């Protein structure tokens, strides 16, 4: 849920990165954090297991700039991707303004992508959201691996509504900022449209 504070002249929005386990959600955030100037970011909070699997969520606030004198801040969250953390995923989706679905391009992860996407739609519906109306971007991650499904085929399976889709190699940063910019722009455009 977007917060517009006229006193502090700030707009705060929430973006959630979703996807199956080990698809690269945390890697996206990590790259964004490492590449952003100090004065434009807060801390990267990661609630993770000892083996660095996201346990509850990752979070970082990011300041994108000023629009008509208002600072635009995006709160980026990731959800835990492993199947049994569904209860936590539902909580993190509350108040979401935009979603990035990070797909794992590897052939053997196709079922996991589809299951996670279905789970996203279900959880959004429970919160009263409709994926068809929500700012939403698809990221096809891990494009550098040898066993990836062709991008067009992956898009055909996973695209829901002609949402923008970006090839990515999150470990190198490729596609990471393009994805973020696309979803942030959608969120602001939707706010403008009312």
């Amino acid at each position, binding site marked *: *849920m*977007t*917060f*517009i*504070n*006229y*006193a*502090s002249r700030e707009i*705060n929005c*929430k973006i959630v990165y979703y996807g199956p386990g080990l698809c690269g959600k945390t890697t996206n955030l990590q790259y964004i954090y490492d590449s952003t100037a100090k004065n434009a970011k*807060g*801390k990267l*909070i990661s*609630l993770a297991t000892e083996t660095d699997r996201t346990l*509850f*969520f990752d*979070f970082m*606030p990011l300041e*994108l*700039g000023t*629009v*008509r004198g*208002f600072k*635009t801040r995006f*709160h980026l*969250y990731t959800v835990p991707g492993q199947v049994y953390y569904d*209860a*936590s995923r539902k*909580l*993190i989706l*509350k*108040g979401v*303004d935009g979603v990035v679905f990070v797909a794992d391009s590897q052939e053997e992860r196709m079922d996991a992508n589809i299951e996670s996407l279905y789970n996203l739609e279900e959880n959004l519906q429970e*919160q*009263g*959201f*409709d994926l068809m*109306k*929500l*700012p939403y971007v698809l990221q096809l991650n891990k494009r550098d691996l040898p066993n990836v499904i062709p991008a067009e085929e992956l898009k055909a399976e996973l695209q829901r509504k002609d949402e923008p889709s970006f090839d990515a190699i999150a470990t190198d940063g490729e596609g990471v900022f393009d994805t973020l*910019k696309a979803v*942030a*722009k959608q*969120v*602001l*455009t*939707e*706010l*403008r449209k*009312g």
Partner: protein
Amino acid sequence: MAETPVIINELNFQKIQSLLQKLCVESAARVVLLVDRDGQPIACHGDVGDMDTTSFSSLAAGNIAATSSMARLIGEEEFPAVVHEGERESIFISVIGRSLLAVVFDRRSTLGLVKLRTKKASFSVAKILEEIARDSADQTLNETSFFAEVTEDDIDSLFS
């Protein structure tokens, strides 16, 4: 987006700040924060120092979200308040509708005092939050609203 944005005008923000200031003084707290349940910080008052209030807000919301789910698993609707006692500093978080009032206090105060003052303050905070919710729902994108002035070029310039 399913929900209307929450719009806080200057008057309501000042009212919230005054309430937080009063609570901070009356409960002898170090910091008092008002946080949305989805993790957005709304306002804070006190000796923040180098405390990362944005992260704190997100974690407080996550904390309450998790404990509320645990409450439902044992047949409770939710836990209206949560306490974390540390060696030097403690945190008391109480749920006020869609928001959380978080009080960080040290040995200058006591849990009992914080609970008492927070309960008293929560009624006034709830009233202002209701007013904010009403104003946000009523406010349409009219000629004077902020987003009506924003152009596509303004948005594009953020990403250039």
